[in-house]
């Protein structure tokens, strides 16, 4: 995994939506989009595409899927340019699962897939696909009678048509209950183990950390960081913090644990006398964690919780843009695309 030529590679890809121009209706103006996006995805890997609403996640996925023609840059599949292999051929490599498809009507999942199979001109069996996504028993259920979870599974089955090498999943966990989410994650891992490259978009970093191999953070159409989760945290300087809670001890001053460690006192939960959050640049080694525990126990504290907490998406965005975590997600206009600082893994190495 991760070696060899990338299955998908994006180089300086730019696409901007065209918006109506009310002053000059014959001429459209450029709105938001994606700007200079570079990305590589290898066979068998799962990439999490993270960003707040309006950051360009869906636009990027649609551009890769051939629904938007990029204005600039190259998109290559297994090293071959999309323009060279032809758009329709390129689309054979890709399975797109759009966000929350609201399947409706009297058709059945079997009919929906049969129609798409006809469209692709392939002889694939819809039954097999429905079996993969766990819908064998619902293949003749009218779409109107399906739950949101079933609809999501059907959308995934559509994306799996033609055994694509690259799967693009736009917010696939939305609307799924925790049990279905776990099953979905397991299914994605199985597909990745078979060599499929998967890009999953989400605005929830914590649900991503459970199954992705690497992360790419988008903000206002630009990729501000990419790499493994720990690499991204390191690049952005927002390493995981340590949450400690317990009884019988009063948290000391901020520098009690050493000069590099900052301390934040949080509200105690029931059955706790105190709860603190410790931040340290460079992350926490097991020795450092042990030293913290020891100093608390020596001071008479009884520890009931020790937990490492990942930085939130807004903390990461704030670190990347220099804005405050409270305001970084606000004011996303239809044409807001500002030059941001760009972080590459190589900068830190």
């Amino acid at each position, binding site marked *: 995994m991760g070696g060899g030529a990338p299955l998908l590679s994006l180089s300086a890809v730019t696409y901007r939506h065209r918006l109506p121009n009310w002053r000059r209706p014959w001429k459209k103006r450029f709105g938001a989009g994606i700007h200079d996006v570079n990305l590589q995805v290898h066979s068998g890997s799962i990439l999490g595409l993270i960003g707040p609403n309006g950051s360009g996640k869906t636009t990027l996925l*649609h551009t890769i899927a051939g629904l938007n023609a990029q204005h600039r840059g190259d998109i290559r599949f297994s090293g071959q340019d999309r323009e060279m292999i032809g758009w329709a051929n390129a689309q054979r490599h890709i399975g797109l699962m*759009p*966000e*929350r498809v609201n399947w409706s009507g009297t058709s059945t999942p079997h009919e929906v897939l*049969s129609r798409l199979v006809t469209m*692709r001109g392939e002889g694939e069996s819809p039954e097999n696909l429905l079996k993969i996504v766990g819908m064998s028993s619902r293949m003749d259920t009218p779409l109107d009678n399906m739950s949101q979870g079933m609809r999501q599974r059907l959308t995934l089955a559509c994306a799996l048509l033609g055994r694509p090498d690259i799967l693009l999943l736009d917010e696939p966990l939305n609307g799924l209950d925790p049990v279905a989410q776990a099953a979905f994650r397991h299914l994605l891992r199985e597909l990745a183990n078979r060599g499929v490259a998967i890009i999953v978009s989400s605005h929830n970093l914590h649900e991503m950390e459970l199954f992705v191999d690497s992360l790419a953070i988008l903000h206002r159409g630009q990729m501000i960081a990419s790499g493994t989760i720990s690499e991204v945290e390191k690049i952005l300087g927002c390493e995981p913090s340590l949450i400690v809670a317990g009884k019988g001890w009063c948290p000391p001053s901020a520098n009690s644990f050493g000069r590099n460690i900052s301390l934040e006192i949080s509200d105690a939960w029931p059955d706790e006398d105190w709860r603190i959050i410790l931040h340290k640049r460079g992350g926490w080694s097991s020795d450092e964690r042990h030293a913290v525990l020891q100093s608390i126990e020596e001071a008479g504290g009884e520890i009931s919780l020790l937990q490492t907490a990942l930085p939130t998406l807004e903390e990461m965005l704030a670190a990347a843009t220099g804005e405050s975590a409270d305001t970084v997600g606000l004011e996303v206009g239809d044409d807001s695309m500002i030059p941001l600082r760009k972080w590459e893994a190589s900068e830190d190495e």
Partner: protein
Amino acid sequence: MSRLAREMKVLRLSWIEAKMHFRGPRMIALIALLLLFICGGSWGLSDPSATVTSELQFETPYEILFLVSLFVLFSATLGVVLLGFDGISRKRLTGELAIELSQPIDRFDLARSQLQGLWLAVFIPTTVACAIGTLLIKAHIDALPSLYDWIYFMIPTGLIIFWYACIQLLASSIAKDLGSSVTLGVGIWMLFTIIWLLFTAILATFMGVDITDFESAQFNHFSDIVDLLSPNGVYQLLLEGNLDADARPQLSQIYIWASAILWSIIPGMLFLRRFKRLRP
């Protein structure tokens, strides 16, 4: 993929699309409309004891079919609006369009299958209703139109359904939500079906044509020319071409057929062009 295989794929997709329309609840409304208007019209207009108006003379089965075409205009074209107003916009709203557009199929072929599917979904029941109507005419006047007359009647009928299918899908691809879709779809239908005479009269006033007498030769000639700009007008002019010489339009058949060809090409090309650039 060979040209033949490609065409077969488009035909299969069109048939699947038509079957989806057939099974939808709106088909019940369409069938009711067609039965009431076309079959009811055929039955009523062919009744020897019925008097419609002194100016309308009809003796042959084709002449009755010609009068029935007015009911075809109201029912079949409204049927296209009913089935097609959200043909693209609904898929865009539900997200299905993104899935379809991401499939490895030429967008031109996909658009054609949508268009042909909608056309088939309305044309097949309309043909059945017209066939029943023809039998009802026979029951009343004991005469059937010749096969030539019947085919002559059905070709413009198929064409007008096709023109409205193009217009509706074009409107649906422009609309971003269902409200706009309904407004555009029904608005265009109303323009051509209900308020076209008003439009003609206003235009005639500006052109200095006397509009105090709608039966005058001058106004009729002007009206025929303006009708070339309306699918309903062209449909009527095409059908009038098979009537007796004194009832035929004053315009040359070349203009009428040229207009029919343009109506078959321009809205269709606009829709296909728009579909090619469509974003989900």
